[in-house]
């Protein structure tokens, strides 16, 4: 069995704000194999982008801090590297492309300058060689007349073209891992499809592993092998695309799938929507974070945070106490138990003990070990 390319272990990234400590990523673990295409889906604020930025080492102190965890990339813990070593990883071995291509390129430098900058930084080549590589990279993303395009400025390009340039820039140094943070969110649907096709083609051709962060389950389905669903800073379900789409084990995943429009759906019915809204990551509910919005919640859900555990098909994992009993696969949206919206805001159900407003970093450490205990207890259940 080959070694995993990326192994994230109990990563916790917190941000200190005036309102309190934002637990943007709160104890997630996952791994990626070389060439694997992993989708990370979740609502805004679920911690998808912060996960990516943590892997890249782009969390800005002092507000943001990776409190604990390990990010093993090709056998090295990225969180322990110094800035110089990290810089050689960033852009070279792990590349990242961002959500809004309109603002992601520096307006005062030419496309060629910006592409060559990355190449000169990570490859041992001279300027004219770098120019050749850059031209090739532009050709690879199917932009015609690459030589002339080198002299253009970003504002002369459309959003789709700029995203192609971002992809060219990301892949120009043949990284092992490409992190794409909502690469098509800002683009129109036709361009979206073209960009995803292009990424798929290039990733398959080069065997690049891709972490695709998105809130669009449709985009994931066509692109990824595997999927993990994030909710309020944690992973609630992970598995292969087919496992999760056809046999969801977590009520949240099920809710997301049910709320998608389907062209092949012959019955006419209202689209399902998950009641309530995601919890504030400053003031998380006690126990399962999805509990206030979950129609299946029982007493235990209010007390113990469920761990991600194997359930459903082989290799599939979900963080739900009741995964086995629910049989979500067969459940129709109109048959789902409803939840009182008031419960979502019920104040005595939110966890006062875990309120970290006044806590300093030491306090966070203490809280973390307390939470480890909780998780330990729950493991013995």
């Amino acid at each position, binding site marked *: 069995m080959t070694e995993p390319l990326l192994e994230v272990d109990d990563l916790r990234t917190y941000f200190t704000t005036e309102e309190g400590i934002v637990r943007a990523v709160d104890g997630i673990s996952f791994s990626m194999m070389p060439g694997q295409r992993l989708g990370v889906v979740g609502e805004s604020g679920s911690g998808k982008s912060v996960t990516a930025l943590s892997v890249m080492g782009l969390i800005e102190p002092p507000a943001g801090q990776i409190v604990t965890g390990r990010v093993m990339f090709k056998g090295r813990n990225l969180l322990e590297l110094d800035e110089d070593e990290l810089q050689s990883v*960033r*852009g070279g071995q792990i590349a990242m492309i961002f959500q809004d291509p309109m603002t992601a390129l520096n307006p005062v430098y030419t496309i060629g300058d910006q592409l060559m900058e990355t190449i000169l930084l*990570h490859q041992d080549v001279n300027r004219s060689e770098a120019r050749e590589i850059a031209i090739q990279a532009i050709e690879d993303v199917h932009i015609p007349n690459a030589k002339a395009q080198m002299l253009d400025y970003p504002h002369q390009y459309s959003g789709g073209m700029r995203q192609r340039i971002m992809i060219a820039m990301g892949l120009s140094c043949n990284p092992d891992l490409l992190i794409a943070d909502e690469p098509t969110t800002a683009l129109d649907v036709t361009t979206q499809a073209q960009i995803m096709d292009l990424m798929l083609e290039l990733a398959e051709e080069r065997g690049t592993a891709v972490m695709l962060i998105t809130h669009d389950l449709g985009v994931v389905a066509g692109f990824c092998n595997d999927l993990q669903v994030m909710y309020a800073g944690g992973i609630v379900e992970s598995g292969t695309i087919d496992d999760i789409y056809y046999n969801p084990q977590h009520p949240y995943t099920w809710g997301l799938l049910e709320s998608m429009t389907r062209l092949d759906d012959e019955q006419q019915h209202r689209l399902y929507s998950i009641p309530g809204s995601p919890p504030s990551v400053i003031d998380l509910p006690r126990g399962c974070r999805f509990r206030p919005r979950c129609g299946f919640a029982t007493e235990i859900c209010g007390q113990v945070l469920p761990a991600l555990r194997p359930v459903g098909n082989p290799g599939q994992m979900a963080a739900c106490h009741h995964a086995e009993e629910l049989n979500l696969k067969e459940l129709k949206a109109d048959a789902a138990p409803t939840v009182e919206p008031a419960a979502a805001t019920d104040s005595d159900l939110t966890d006062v003990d875990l309120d970290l407003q006044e806590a300093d970093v030491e306090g966070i450490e203490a809280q973390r070990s307390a939470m480890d205990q909780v998780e330990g207890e729950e493991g013995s259940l």
Partner: protein
Amino acid sequence: MLSYITRRLVYGLVTLLALSMIVFTLLQLSGGGPLDRLKLNPRMQPVIQQLTELWGLDQPIWRQYVTWLKNYLTVSEFSVHNMLPFVAIGAAVVATVVLGKLMKSHWKGAAILGVWAIAMYIVFVNITIKFNWGISFQGAGDVWDLVFGRVGATFRLGLSALFLALIIGVPLGIYQAVRQYSFFDQLGTTASFVFFSTPIFIIGVGLQLIFALYFERWTGVKLFYVAGMNSSNYDTLSVAGKIGDTLRHLVLPAVSIALISLAGYARFQRASMLEVLHSDYLRTAKAKGLPRSKVIVKHALRNAMIPVVTLVSLDIAFMIGGAIITETIFGWPGIGRLYITAIGTIDYPVVMAIVMLIGIMIVIMNVVADILYGVMDPRVRYD
């Protein structure tokens, strides 16, 4: 590009015409006249009569204005010393056409601007030109000579102050932004506010007291002078002595002005830099693996300097009007002092000459700023 500049200059002319009308009218309506000082003396009555007729002060305002405008635009002296001005202009025209065809669009503006600046310099050095800007009512002589006799002093002070403010204020603002909320940032912000909100006469007099008066009293060393541009024995000094003498006169007034404008530059540069530091393209630069220093110097700085160019260009334009208060405090023989004296004695020709000079500079520097803007930001288009 050329049509844009031409259009801007035409608008500029219209603006200047309107400016001259408004200021001329306001001066006339402000009450009192240039001869009022003489009225107290009954024996001066015939002189007043004579001067009123001579200067046309008894005529309606619009007539006086037309007369003034006609004179203002009349060349009274013109001679070309050699053929160089023609060569320079010819070369500039050729260079404009050639550069216009050859160069990449956004550098073109700067190159053409530079060519014309050099050509204009050659022209002015090799010709004598003088406009009929009238005679000062206060008997100080020809207005053209009066104003241009003081431009040197004003430029020396203004450019020194601007230079100091720029080389300290801009890096200060950048450093503050990069280390936002650090102790240094807080200190810089506080100091900026203190200097920005202190009137120049407090800073000026304070510097005079501390660095000239008290310093000499405590140490017995005369380090800085509090008034004038040079000592009376300037001509007898050696070259080193001359430079020293000039600097010892220049430092205090230049620092007074610089302290206030550098506070403004630092604030402005800090805000502009912060905006850029939080931009998406800076995150891209970091994600490329660029070292932090290169992210800031290459990717942030050039974007953050764009708004500052406009600010500095306009400051240069206003500088020509002289620093009225500072020049008065430090006995600096610049345009500012001439201006305030002329306003006090309602000396129309002098006031009008200085107002128009400031106006012309603002129009020109605005166009220059626009061209530089286009050089720094490739998104700017002139059509």
